[in-house]
């Protein structure tokens, strides 16, 4: 249980999938214009991550270990999980976004690289999903507060979102020391 909680806390803070691993940036730059949009996009990915982790957990020893074969395997599992997510959440999202979700595929690859086994898949996915969701909502909130701020025109939109994410990431790095 303590191991599970360690994984959970580690993936939310010191191993945050967006701010520390740099995944899910497509959603971060496109779906954080409003908090509502961030919640909807985040929910789909969260469900996709949990579905992907459950698939890996159920497959157990069948999961390939050779790098060249597992690469394709994890991308396909990610594609299946991402395609299932909108049906489970009953939401309509951009098809281009949800079928090839980098946060989801990246999470599966990180679990493979880290040698995550069995039920730890679920702990890892829950932590990563929560960390991802929280970051999306926080950035959307900051972005809304910045609407009236005198930001130079060239920095508005995607550049300022990336800079905000970078500063948040630097803050999280402090927990690693």
């Amino acid at each position, binding site marked *: 249980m303590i191991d599970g909680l360690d994984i959970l806390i580690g993936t939310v803070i010191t191993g945050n999938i967006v701010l520390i*691993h740099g*995944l899910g940036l497509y959603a971060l730059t496109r779906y954080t214009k409003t908090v509502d949009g961030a919640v909807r996009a985040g929910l789909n990915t969260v469900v996709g991550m949990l579905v992907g982790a459950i698939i890996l957990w159920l497959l157990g020893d069948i999961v390939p270990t050779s790098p060249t074969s597992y*690469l394709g395997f994890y991308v396909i599992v990610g594609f299946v999980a991402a395609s299932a997510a909108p049906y489970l959440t009953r939401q309509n999202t951009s098809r281009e976004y949800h079928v090839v979700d980098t946060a989801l595929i990246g999470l599966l690859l990180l679990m493979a690289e880290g040698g995550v086994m069995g039920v730890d898949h679920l702990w890892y996915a829950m932590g990563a999903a929560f960390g991802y969701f929280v970051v999306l909502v926080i950035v959307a909130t900051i972005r809304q507060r910045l609407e009236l701020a005198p930001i130079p*025109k*060239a920095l508005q939109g995607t550049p300022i979102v*990336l800079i905000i994410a970078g500063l948040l990431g630097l803050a999280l790095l402090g927990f690693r020391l």
Partner: protein
Amino acid sequence: MKVFWESVFKKNPVLVLAMGLVPAVAITTTAHNGWVLGISITAVLLASSIINYVLVPLVPSTSRVALRVLVLIVLVVALYGLMVHKRPGLVAGLGVFFPFMVADAFRLQSSENQPTFGQVVLEALGQGVGFIWALVLIGLVREFLAFGSLFGKEVLTGVLRPLSLASGVPGGLIIVGLLLALTRVINKQGGELHD
């Protein structure tokens, strides 16, 4: 040729369309990584565009997304296998996130309006060249700031590294954000509407 040059500069996939952000931030910590990744993405983009041009009209519209993803997965896995076999050192530098080019290539090719074969090839080549120069530029800036070197050659010998955080993801996010803003200044674009 207009399609080609537009994809290289005016509609650059990384610095204008902000498409390949994960490779730019998570993988491109050196100019060499950017170069290898750019070449790989160009090969995948070109091959998948040609295959899709031939295959996509033959399948029902409901299965086209799955087909396009499948084509990309096969190409990326084949390229990865080839690189592991021929140049394992190249792959080691790119790490676990190599398959993300599936996502970037898929999103770049989402338009189904493909008038002629020549235009499809030119657009894919233009996007590939756009990826290469943008990723190499990002890699150069990050490598210089983080390690004081350019393409592995030390240029700041005996000097304190200016910003070692540039090789990490948070530093990468800030640098890529600033380069995106700089591109907008050069292109005289910008503002929330530009997104």
